[in-house]
């Protein structure tokens, strides 16, 4: 038995485990797949969006800066072309022009200067004392002599401040001179400084040698520096279209990923670089990733908790159902046994019937013979007659027993006939009277007169009411009580009410009393079939059977049976 219990315990454990695994795998795997897919798609499109945005930004500023440079160059060229060397050599005139330019553009133009063929500044207008300065060795001067138009890199020069120079060389009328303008570094730097996104995004310009042409607004506490290796990569790769915008993602010296977006300026002389930490650029994406991860952990946690509780509940219920099934199986076997005992009894009764009948008749025959004259004088005549009488009496007793046995085993006689419900109830009361008296039960009949006849099987109706009356007497067996049986007509039904003052049915059992095999009687005393058969019979007739009960107060059954049309009194 213990072994069996162990076996069933391990069966339920296995069942629990399988349910848990099924629930978990069915819910979590799709959750993970969906989350990963959505996150991956979102990540890809977000990256594309960010890169596109940065490229657009760089492109716009490249145009802006290129525009700024060519505009300044255009202004200088206009000066050189319009006025010529003679006028421009006059320092007061040059001063006037500078003032006009500064009026138009603000302090972008710092100074203007005219430089002759020997590299000597012959005229100068500006805040510094640079007249007669000799630039023949200056890097920019060597470039300016070779090109008609030239924009220099940013350098400190003689004044010791960062600036760059725009030059126009004029060779008309056999003269060879250069008009030079200094562009204020601060004004230019503002153009690049304005490119600033997020916490770590900034831009800067480098020349071909990789020297910074602007001051990036790096934030020292953030430890951001222009990534030199990266823009050198860009500078080395000059093969492709100078207008192209390049994007690169590389780790910096501290192994943090940085995004670099670059584009050439000034016909490939300068490189505009925008740099931002990937973590900063994709901050929103990273936030989404964190939320997704939390959800992906919390979701399965919920699923796991649910799987455990649910599987335990399901398995408990299955275990309970299994136990009930086993009990019911036992009852079915019990009922089967009873049925076979019934059949056996019926068979025996049937076989005994004929021999008993013959015995009784033979005794009768002996009685017949004793009537003849020759026996009349026999001194034992009275004894003979008494003896024969005994044989006949006992034979009849046997007959009654076999009849009862056969009635017990007999199938219900389903033939329909006219049934007077009151007569039938009276008969049943008479049958139960002896038992009721013994149990000190007082039967109180109350029949409504002239009820219409019912057209149903008498034996089925008898079975129903006999069952209910017997149950009622059972309930009052110990302490006695009153059994009220009443009949009345209600609309098209005859309602029979049977109420007792017995032990009553507990609330919990009340809903199950019509269930097959439900019984509270000790094993072997009741099959639990009685009321379920009653229910089946009344239901088949189209009637209703209802029960109300309180513990220690009593139980009342109402049975309504339809009166068929045309059966009125």
């Amino acid at each position, binding site marked *: 038995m213990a072994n069996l219990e162990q076996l069933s315990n391990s069966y339920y454990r296995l069942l629990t485990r399988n349910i848990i695994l099924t629930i978990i795998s069915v819910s979590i795997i799709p959750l993970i797949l969906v989350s990963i897919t959505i996150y991956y798609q979102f990540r890809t499109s977000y990256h594309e969006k960010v890169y596109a945005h940065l490229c657009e930004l760089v492109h716009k500023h490249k145009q802006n800066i290129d525009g700024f440079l060519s505009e300044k160059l255009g202004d200088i060229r206009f000066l050189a072309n319009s006025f010529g060397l003679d006028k421009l050599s006059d320092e007061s005139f040059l001063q006037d022009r500078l003032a006009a330019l500064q009026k138009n553009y603000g302090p972008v133009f710092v100074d203007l200067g005219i430089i002759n063929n020997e590299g000597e500044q012959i005229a100068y207008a500006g805040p510094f004392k640079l007249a007669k300065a000799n630039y023949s060795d200056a890097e920019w001067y060597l470039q300016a002599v070779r090109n008609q138009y030239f924009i220099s890199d940013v350098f400190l020069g003689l004044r010791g401040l960062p600036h760059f120079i725009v030059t126009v060389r004029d060779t008309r009328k056999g003269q060879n001179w250069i008009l030079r303008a200094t562009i204020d570094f601060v004004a230019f730097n503002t153009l690049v400084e304005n490119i600033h996104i997020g916490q770590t995004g900034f831009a800067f310009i480098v020349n071909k040698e990789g020297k910074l042409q602007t001051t990036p607004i790096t934030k020292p506490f953030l430890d951001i520096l222009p990534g030199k290796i990266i823009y050198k990569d860009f500078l080395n790769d000059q093969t492709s279209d100078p207008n192209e915008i390049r994007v690169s993602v590389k780790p910096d010296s501290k192994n943090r990923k940085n995004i670099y977006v670059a584009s050439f300026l000034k016909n490939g002389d300068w490189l505009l670089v925008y740099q931002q930490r990937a973590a900063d650029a994709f901050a929103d994406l990273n936030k989404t990733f964190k939320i997704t991860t939390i959800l992906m952990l919390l979701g399965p946690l919920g699923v796991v908790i649910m799987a455990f509780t649910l599987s335990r509940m399901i398995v408990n219920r299955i275990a309970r159902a299994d136990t009930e099934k086993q009990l019911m199986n036992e009852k079915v076997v019990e009922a089967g046994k009873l049925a076979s005992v019934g059949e056996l009894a019926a068979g025996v009764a049937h076989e005994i*019937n004929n*021999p008993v009948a013959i015995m009784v*008749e033979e005794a*009768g*025959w002996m009685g*017949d013979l004793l009537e003849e004259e020759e026996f009349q004088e026999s001194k034992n005549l009275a004894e003979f007659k008494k003896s024969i009488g005994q044989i006949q009496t006992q034979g009849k007793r046997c007959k009654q027993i076999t009849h009862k046995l056969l*009635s017990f085993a007999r199938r219900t006689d389903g*033939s329909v006939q006219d049934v007077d419900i009151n007569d039938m109830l009276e008969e049943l009361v008479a049958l139960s009277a002896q038992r009721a008296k013994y149990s000190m039960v007082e039967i109180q009949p109350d029949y409504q007169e002239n009820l219409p006849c019912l057209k149903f099987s008498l034996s089925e109706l008898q079975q129903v009411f006999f069952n209910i009356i017997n149950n009622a007497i059972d309930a009052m067996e110990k302490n006695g009580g009153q059994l009220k049986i009443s009949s009345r007509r209600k609309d098209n039904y005859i309602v029979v009410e049977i109420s007792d003052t017995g032990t009553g049915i507990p609330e919990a059992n009340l809903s199950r009393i019509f269930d097959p095999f439900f019984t509270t009687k000790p094993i072997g005393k009741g099959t639990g079939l009685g009321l379920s058969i009653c229910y089946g019979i009344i239901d088949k007739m189209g009637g209703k059977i209802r029960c109300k009960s309180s513990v220690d107060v009593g139980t009342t059954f109402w049975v309504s049976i339809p009166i068929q049309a045309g059966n009125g009194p």
Partner: protein
Amino acid sequence: MTSDENVKSDRIRLLLVDDEEGFVNVLSKRISRRNIDVTRAFSGSEAIQALRLQAFDVAVLDLKMEDLDGLEVLKIFKIMDPQLAVIMLTGHGSTEAAKKGMDLGAFDYLTKPCELEELLEKITAAYTAHKRV
């Protein structure tokens, strides 16, 4: 198949059919003492044979016999002699067969084992009802 010799016109001629020999024997002896001529038959076929040889007023027929079903015998009786009054004997609880027998033209039925007095009453009633003109 046996028959009492002294046939008189005012005595009821009865055919008693049952395969329970002991029962038929004792019953026929007892009935014979009550102004009735009893012919015994222990099977359906014997009963049919007896009816071919002689006319009867009343037949008492057991419905449960080994060779022929009682109802079949009843049908044949009714064909051979529609005037014959038939009282059926049935086992307890098989009133269905008895009702079928009534539909086939039987006079009445009794459940076995029956009282002699009751049987005699039925025989007399059947004889009176079916008295040949």
